[in-house]
């Protein structure tokens, strides 16, 4: 692609920058669909590979990952692929008999069974017919929830559960969707940023940004579900920081940068330092500047 | 035949049979089903049977205004109707795609294929379809209805289209000054179209991930096939169309082998078609020929007033000629494309002489025929049917 095409609207931000030169090591391990993967005799085939005749070929574009005998190719950008134990943010799409269908940015909608949620009051009992009729009072269509992946069925169906006080309906915040591959799987999904804003980084690329007035100190994971519901008003300042965080995540997504609390705060602080008002944060020239500065402050 | 979904067992059986070199219905891999052409009593109608697949086609001619970019050429249009009458499985297609029987994907593909092999390859001479350049041309419409879908509908439709175009007749047209007269069937023998070549479509099914290609798949084989390859060849060994739309990948070397199979099959079918046509002519007497509907367009332009129903024109002409003492108007400036065709005295092939054979001479003698002299007539195809007794 020529440099003179920089002004074309079809060039995405990070391409304009023509970032770092890719390392030679990585480029030798790059494969596109149909490319051969060099392998020894006995390998265990992982995701992204297939056997065609005697050849082992890749089915996606990515880097070949080898772990002992396992050979796999992970796509750089794809729809969310669930694993058991992932914490995700989802949107209720539909309510059918005794279950909710949840959109989780994956190939199929996930399923949240009625028996997999905590009833109000925390009481453990069999779900009755009345519970079924009251499902809509619990989670209605278009509600956002946080949940955990309980199980994966044979055909790829994702079963969710919210059997913990930290999961449940999400309120008083902003939702943003990013590329799932940018959210690394880690132990903590619920974070409290140094600017006072809380975020939930779903492994599926759905992020929830919210304020939490109740003072809980360091240990956010034990926050009580029901108390969160009482916060109806946030003041203007809080809202502005929410939006700033949201825009920072947006910039990270545009430039295909890893999304972690540290990187979010890096962008956040940069915009504060430059006194960029929230509404201008996503202007093309400004995000370019921010990115360049951030790039140079990396610690690697 | 009632459509029932095929069981896995039947599908596997069909595949295993193919691997062993034989088909479920006993044919060999390179053997196609028998084709049967049955021409109807009306010109341009034909029912084609390809094994159990049955397709009906009818071709009619209409007078229309020509398109702007080709004012001296007529045109041929096709429509394929693939309704649930042909196969119950098609009902599902409607429910999910919301298309009608003639805009179904499969129907659209067949129409595109037909357009390719007949229109784009100039199988029919469109210049001879011109009546008055820039004003009136013949538009031939071929309507194909699939009656029974038992595999390989594309081939059956193409053969039916070609057969009906070969069988059809368009009325004789005379242009006198600014007047255009379209003669009815009982007054003048309609003439066949000018056909340059006969493209015959031959389809193959692709099996076993592209390693096996079998000619003319039946419906059972179609349910297990992984792709289809269609080649249209004519008797001059020219490939009129080649289509492989998706499906399993195949080695390019396999193509040439199958192209030669296609050629053999095409010659076979052409011979059969011509034989069937000849049989029809020898069987059908003129009396059984129903009058061909000729529709004129609704668009009005000065000449249209002159183009009326056949009998009225005839009477007018009769009066005129009776009055005028039959002047043969030789200079016809309006005819352009018709004069391109050769002018020739039509020679009667049949055993009995036809009473109207010498029309170019002054026919003031006979009272039945008081038409103005025939100036030029495009070359006809087959011999005339026998005259009325």
């Amino acid at each position, binding site marked *: 692609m020529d440099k003179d095409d920089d002004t074309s609207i*079809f*060039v*995405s931000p*990070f391409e304009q920058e023509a*970032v*770092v030169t*890719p*390392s030679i090591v990585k480029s030798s391990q790059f494969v*596109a*669909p*149909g490319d051969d993967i060099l392998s020894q005799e006995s390998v265990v085939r992982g995701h992204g590979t*297939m056997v*065609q005749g005697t050849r082992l*070929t890749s*089915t*996606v*574009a*990515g880097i070949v990952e080898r772990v002992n005998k396992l050979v796999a190719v992970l*796509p*750089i*950008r*794809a*729809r969310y692929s669930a694993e058991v134990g992932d914490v995700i943010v989802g949107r209720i799409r539909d309510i059918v008999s005794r279950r909710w269908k949840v959109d989780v940015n994956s*190939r*199929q*909608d996930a399923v949240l069974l009625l028996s997999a949620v905590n009833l109000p009051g925390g009481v453990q009992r069999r779900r009755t017919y009345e519970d079924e009729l009251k499902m809509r009072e619990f989670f209605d269509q278009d509600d956002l929830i946080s949940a955990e992946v309980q199980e994966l069925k044979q055909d*790829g169906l994702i079963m969710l559960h919210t059997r913990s006080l930290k999961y449940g309906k999400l309120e008083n915040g902003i939702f943003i969707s990013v590329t799932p591959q*940018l959210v690394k799987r880690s132990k903590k999904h619920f974070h409290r940023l140094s600017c006072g804003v809380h975020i939930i980084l779903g492994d599926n690329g759905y992020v929830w940004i919210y304020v939490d007035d109740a003072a809980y100190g360091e240990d956010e994971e034990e926050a009580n579900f029901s108390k969160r519901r009482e916060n109806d008003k946030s003041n203007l300042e809080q809202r502005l920081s929410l939006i700033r965080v949201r825009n920072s995540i947006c910039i990270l997504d545009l430039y*295909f*940068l*890893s999304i*972690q*609390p*540290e*990187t979010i705060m*890096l962008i956040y602080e940069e915009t504060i330092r430059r006194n960029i008002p929230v509404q201008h944060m996503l202007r093309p020239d400004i995000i370019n500047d921010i990115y360049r500065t*951030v790039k140079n402050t990396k*610690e*690697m | 035949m009632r459509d029932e979904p095929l069981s896995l067992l039947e599908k596997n059986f069909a595949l295993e049979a193919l691997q062993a070199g034989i088909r479920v219905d006993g044919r060999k891999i390179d053997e196609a089903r028998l084709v049967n052409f049955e021409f109807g009593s009306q010109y341009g109608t034909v029912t084609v049977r390809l094994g159990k697949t049955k397709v009906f086609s009818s071709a009619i001619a209409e007078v229309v205004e020509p398109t702007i970019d080709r004012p001296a050429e007529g045109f041929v249009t096709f429509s394929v109707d693939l309704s649930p009458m042909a196969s119950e499985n098609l009902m599902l297609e409607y429910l999910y795609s919301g298309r009608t029987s003639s805009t179904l*994907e499969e129907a*659209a*593909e067949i*129409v*595109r294929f037909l357009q*390719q092999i007949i229109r*784009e390859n100039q199988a029919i001479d469109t210049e001879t379809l011109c009546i008055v350049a820039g004003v009136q041309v013949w538009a031939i419409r071929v309507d194909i209805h699939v009656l029974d879908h038992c595999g390989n509908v594309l081939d059956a439709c193409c053969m039916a289209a070609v057969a009906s175009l070969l069988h059809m007749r368009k009325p004789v047209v005379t242009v006198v000054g600014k007047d255009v007269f379209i003669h009815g069937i009982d007054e003048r023998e309609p003439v066949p179209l000018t056909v340059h070549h006969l493209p015959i479509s031959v389809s193959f099914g692709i099996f076993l991930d592209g390693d096996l290609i079998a000619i003319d798949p039946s419906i059972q084989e179609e349910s297990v096939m992984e*792709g289809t390859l269609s080649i249209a060849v004519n008797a001059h060994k*020219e*490939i*009129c*169309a*080649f*289509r*492989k*739309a*998706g*499906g399993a*990948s195949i080695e*390019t070397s396999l193509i040439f082998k199958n*192209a030669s199979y296609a050629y053999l099959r095409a010659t076979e079918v052409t011979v059969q078609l011509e034989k069937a046509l000849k049989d029809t002519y020898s069987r059908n007497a003129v009396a059984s020929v129903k009058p061909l509907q000729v529709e004129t367009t609704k668009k009005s332009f000065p000449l249209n007033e002159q183009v009326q129903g056949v009998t009225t024109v005839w009477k007018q002409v009769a009066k005129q000629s009776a009055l005028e003492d039959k002047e043969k108007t030789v200079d016809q400036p309006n005819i352009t494309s018709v004069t391109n065709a050769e002018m020739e005295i039509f020679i009667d092939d049949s055993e009995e002489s036809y009473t109207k054979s010498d029309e170019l001479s002054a026919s003031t003698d006979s009272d039945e025929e008081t038409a103005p002299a025939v100036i030029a007539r495009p070359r006809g195809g087959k011999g005339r049917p026998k005259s009325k007794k």
Partner: protein
Amino acid sequence: MPREELISPDGLRTDGRRPLEIRKVTCRMGILPRADGSCHLEMGNTIVLATVYGPRELSSRQSSCGIIRCEYSMASFASTDRRRGKRSDRNSVEMASSIKKTFENVLLTDLFPKSRVDIFIQVLQADGSERSAAINAVTIAMVNAGIPMKDLIVSCSAGYMENTTVMDLNHVEMITRGPQLTLAIYASTERMATAHLESKASFEIFENLIAIAKKGCLQMFDVMHSSIERYSLNLIASRDHIATFGSRA
């Protein structure tokens, strides 16, 4: 209408190319952030935009394999005379159906049961070989979307005119009524995925067209593969750039 000379005495075509030369190819992927996969492909003056959504939830009928749907349309400003952009006219339906069938075999549909993949193709500028451009653009968009495929499908056209076989036809060369072939092959095995022949050709010419079109496909593959590689490596470098930044927290 006087026939223009398609091939000059020097052996140059109307746009200055040699017979066995493809046009300049530019491809950009990932240009539409909301789509799962997108590609903007330019083959000379033919510009095609392909977007892919999926795999995503299929609400109607259950299926053991993924369903693919495809829609093809030409913008009303795509060719020299403005026409209403139709999506349901026969030509577009046939193109869409052909492309759908091509990709049904390439995508590993059993890896996403009960899901659908939607392909949308829009021709922004038509200067010949739109079918080839569409197929190439969809391939790249699929790669961008991360949908697993057996191989890359590459496509090119070839034609026979004035006793020469030429590669990658432009509009002027396509409107002649000579034999023209659009061929799409699987890049690594070189097996034929899709082929369309317009206008009749003798067996010899046909063989020639296939050989030349294949060569064109392979030239196209080189360009497409390097574009994919460059884009992907940029992405990876970007992502890994500050990935371990402060991860010790």
